[in-house]
């Protein structure tokens, strides 16, 4: 009986192995996905220069790069490549795997493509690889071989800022990035992140929107006393994560939005721990915690699930998010829920509250050419393509008539190009280039967005606040990577050496201070601990990076 079982098992295995072996014979050895055969992109390879491109498949469930032939926008991009005599061959890896594939391929030096998305490698690794010559210097490529498009774009055009950020201390550029610029009233302007409070509760309780931190505290207290969610418990709380400095309330006390950051109008890098408002800030949060107005379990948790739960349970009186967010309302079990942003509440007489803003000129992600690629002219040509007006149009707007139309001289997206219509767009083959090749991404996108669009469609209470604060100062950036040019290898190594222990202690201190496990009055001692762990060094590193930023050159 058992023998039979074993032999049955053996036979099944061999059969399956046989079939599987057949299946893999075709795909074995070749690393391209079976549904992206090179032949479909082929016209006249003899005249064209081949570029092997490795990139991640975007996470859009309906619009997939593998199906690009079905989309109206693809032939246009191909035509653009044709005019530059370029013939790209793609290897597309699913996004969830991309980082691993990227790390293993680059670390082992095997099977390297010509052009690839290196965003998912960490700073230290990328800078080392650049110094070891793994990447072709983009600045040289552009200087020597560009037809002018890329040169203009990066020297005087919209790519100038991005190029500056990507320039190393020795003046070389090893990669290009995505560029997104937002504007308001034709000037650079961007969105921000603020504390959002329950407007419906405010109205039901007969309160005015708070303008000071103390009024905010009173508001939370009133919400609890009046049991705004009607369940008989005093569980209406502030739900946010103070383990990160970008949390809205820290900015009321004039604190910058990162462990080491700066005030945009000032350009001096510092740390919240060194700033004047630090003690008052913790006193405030501790007061909220002591009176159960703040959910302390959310401090520094790995996932958002607990916060989502509180919001869904209709317990979140205030949270931290984008000024014009509307997604939290849909997550609350109470259909009347409405959040409104409140900005720059005064907390300390002598301190100007800050607002944390998203950089209006975003440069993110990295794409590079590997040293394997011999055809430098083709490389420069690819960069040129990515800087053309046509590429921008295809990426951001798609094709006229299919995804956008021109109304009164202004481009406007058609409904099918909006996010709710992905499934339909996938079926009809009408999508923006952004969703097809830049979401993920195979190619870096360029996007120029006037904020008026968004402002025009959100509820009035949010739109009003956004317009009010668009020119507010002083401000601090959300994330400093968009202001610090590429660091030197020494700086990155030094930073990495310090950072884990320093950040661990910083986060611990935050939790312990709020929970009252250590004394706020002993702040000097606590800061001294952080100094011993290298806080000053981190600030110095940040400052020397910022000094190389043209906008802040000293």
């Amino acid at each position, binding site marked *: 009986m058992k023998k039979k079982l074993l032999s049955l098992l053996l036979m099944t295995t061999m059969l399956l192995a046989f079939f599987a072996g057949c299946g893999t014979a075709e795909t074995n050895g070749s690393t391209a996905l079976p549904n992206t055969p090179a032949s479909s992109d082929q016209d006249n390879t003899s005249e064209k220069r081949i570029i092997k491109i490795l990139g991640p498949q975007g996470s859009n*469930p309906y619009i997939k790069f593998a199906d690009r032939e079905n989309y109206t926008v693809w032939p246009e991009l191909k035509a653009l490549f044709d005019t530059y005599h370029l013939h790209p061959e793609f290897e597309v890896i699913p996004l969830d*795997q991309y980082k691993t594939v990227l790390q293993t391929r680059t670390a082992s030096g*095997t099977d390297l493509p010509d052009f690839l998305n290196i965003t998912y490698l960490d700073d230290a690794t990328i800078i080392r690889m650049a110094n070891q010559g793994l990447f072709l210097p983009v600045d040289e490529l552009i200087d020597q071989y560009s037809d002018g498009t890329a040169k203009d774009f990066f020297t005087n055009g919209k790519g100038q800022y991005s190029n500056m950020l990507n320039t190393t201390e020795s003046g070389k550029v090893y990669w290009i990035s995505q560029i997104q610029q937002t504007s308001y009233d034709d000037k650079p302007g961007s969105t921000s992140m603020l504390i959002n409070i329950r407007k419906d509760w405010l109205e039901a309780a007969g309160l005015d929107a708070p303008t000071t931190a103390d009024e905010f505290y009173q508001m939370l207290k009133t919400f609890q006393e009046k049991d705004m969610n009607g369940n008989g418990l005093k569980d209406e709380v502030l739900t946010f994560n103070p383990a990160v400095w970008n949390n809205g309330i820290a900015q009321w006390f004039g604190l910058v939005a990162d462990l080491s950051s700066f005030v945009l109008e000032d350009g001096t890098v510092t740390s919240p721990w060194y700033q004047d408002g630090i003690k008052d800030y913790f006193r405030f949060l501790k007061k909220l915690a002591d009176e159960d107005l703040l959910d302390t379990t959310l401090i520094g948790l790995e996932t958002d699930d607990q916060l989502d739960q509180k919001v869904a349970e209709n317990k979140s009186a205030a949270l931290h998010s984008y000024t014009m967010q509307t997604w939290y309302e849909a997550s609350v079990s109470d259909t009347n829920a409405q959040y409104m942003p409140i900005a720059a509440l005064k907390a300390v007489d002598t301190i100007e509250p800050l607002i944390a803003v998203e950089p209006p000129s975003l440069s993110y992600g990295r794409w590079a050419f590997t040293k394997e690629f011999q055809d430098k002219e083709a490389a420069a040509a690819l960069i040129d393509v990515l800087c053309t007006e046509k590429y921008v149009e295809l990426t951001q707007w798609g094709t006229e008539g299919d995804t956008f139309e021109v109304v009164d001289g202004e481009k406007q997206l058609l409904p099918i190009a909006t996010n709710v219509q992905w499934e339909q767009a996938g079926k009809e083959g009408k999508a923006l280039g952004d969703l097809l090749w830049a979401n993920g991404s195979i190619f870096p996108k360029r996007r120029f967005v006037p904020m008026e669009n968004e402002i025009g469609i959100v509820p009035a209470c949010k739109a009003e606040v956004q317009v009010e604060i668009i020119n507010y100062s002083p401000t601090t950036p959300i994330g400093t990577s968009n202001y610090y040019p590429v660091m030197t290898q020494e700086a990155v190594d030094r930073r990495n050496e310090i950072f884990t222990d320093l950040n661990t202690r910083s986060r611990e201190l935050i939790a312990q201070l709020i929970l009252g496990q250590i004394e706020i009055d002993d702040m000097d001692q606590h800061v001294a601990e952080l100094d011993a762990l290298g806080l000053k060094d981190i600030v110095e590193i940040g400052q020397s990076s910022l000094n190389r930023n043209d906008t802040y050159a000293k």
Partner: protein
Amino acid sequence: MDSIKKGNRIKDESKAANMLIGIFMLAVIFITLYPLYYVFILSVSDPIEAATMKVFLYPKGLYFRAYKIILKDQNIWRSFGYTIFYVLTGTFLTIFTSTTTGYVLSSPHLRGKKWVTIFLLVPMYFSGGTIPSFLLISKLHLYNTVWALVFTSSFNIMYMIYVRSYFYSIPEEMREAAKIEGAGNFKIFRQIYLPLAMPVIAVIAIYTIVNIWNSWYNSMVYQPNTDIQPLQMYLRRVLIEQTVDLTKTGSMAEMEALARTRLSTSQLKYSMIIFTTVPVIIVYPFFQKHFVKGVMLGSVKG
């Protein structure tokens, strides 16, 4: 008379003990079965209700989108098929390597036994990391093939030790007797030890099946080709694909629609669990009989 009294007392003690044990086991069933039931309820409830985590007895607002998302892609059946292949090959090979090694190590005449044991134990504690393994698989031309997974799950050192330990409990007389009759080691292994090893083989089988069924890491590193990837890779991908970036949207309606998507996506992790567990529960009884009833080892004496 005395023995009857004793017998009765034992019976009474037994009854009380039986009840206690029975109640205890009912409690065990509750704490292990209910959570899975809870997961099931969460997976089919309305997303907002599920986010509150407060649906304890029955689902509120039936909502099957999470399952639809998983099942809508035909590729899931392909990954299912490949997973079955990996499970069968991996389990067969692991049983083979475990039983042969266990047999050899339990052999009293083996010289250098201690060194072989230590040789086997070292890799359980030390690993060279992802990159060297990646390089090895590449050099062996196994990268991006099914064989990468087959070979990497072909042995498990801990199970070799289990089998060895199991074989130690089989009396030496059996081996000696067979040898006297002129049987070689292969024959002894196949005809005596292997049949006796069914209980431990069943354990190895179920442990290996479950581990391969749940695994995805090796596939992530060695198999960029999505066609041959196992089920867990597929499910993880579905989860990540559905995770939406809310900050760059264009309209109110969009944002609201995406917010609902975001919530139902967080439910995906529950339906993934149900989807993964059900096949195992179905297959399990086949192995369970080896742990649940007594096995007569009369053949040992004979």
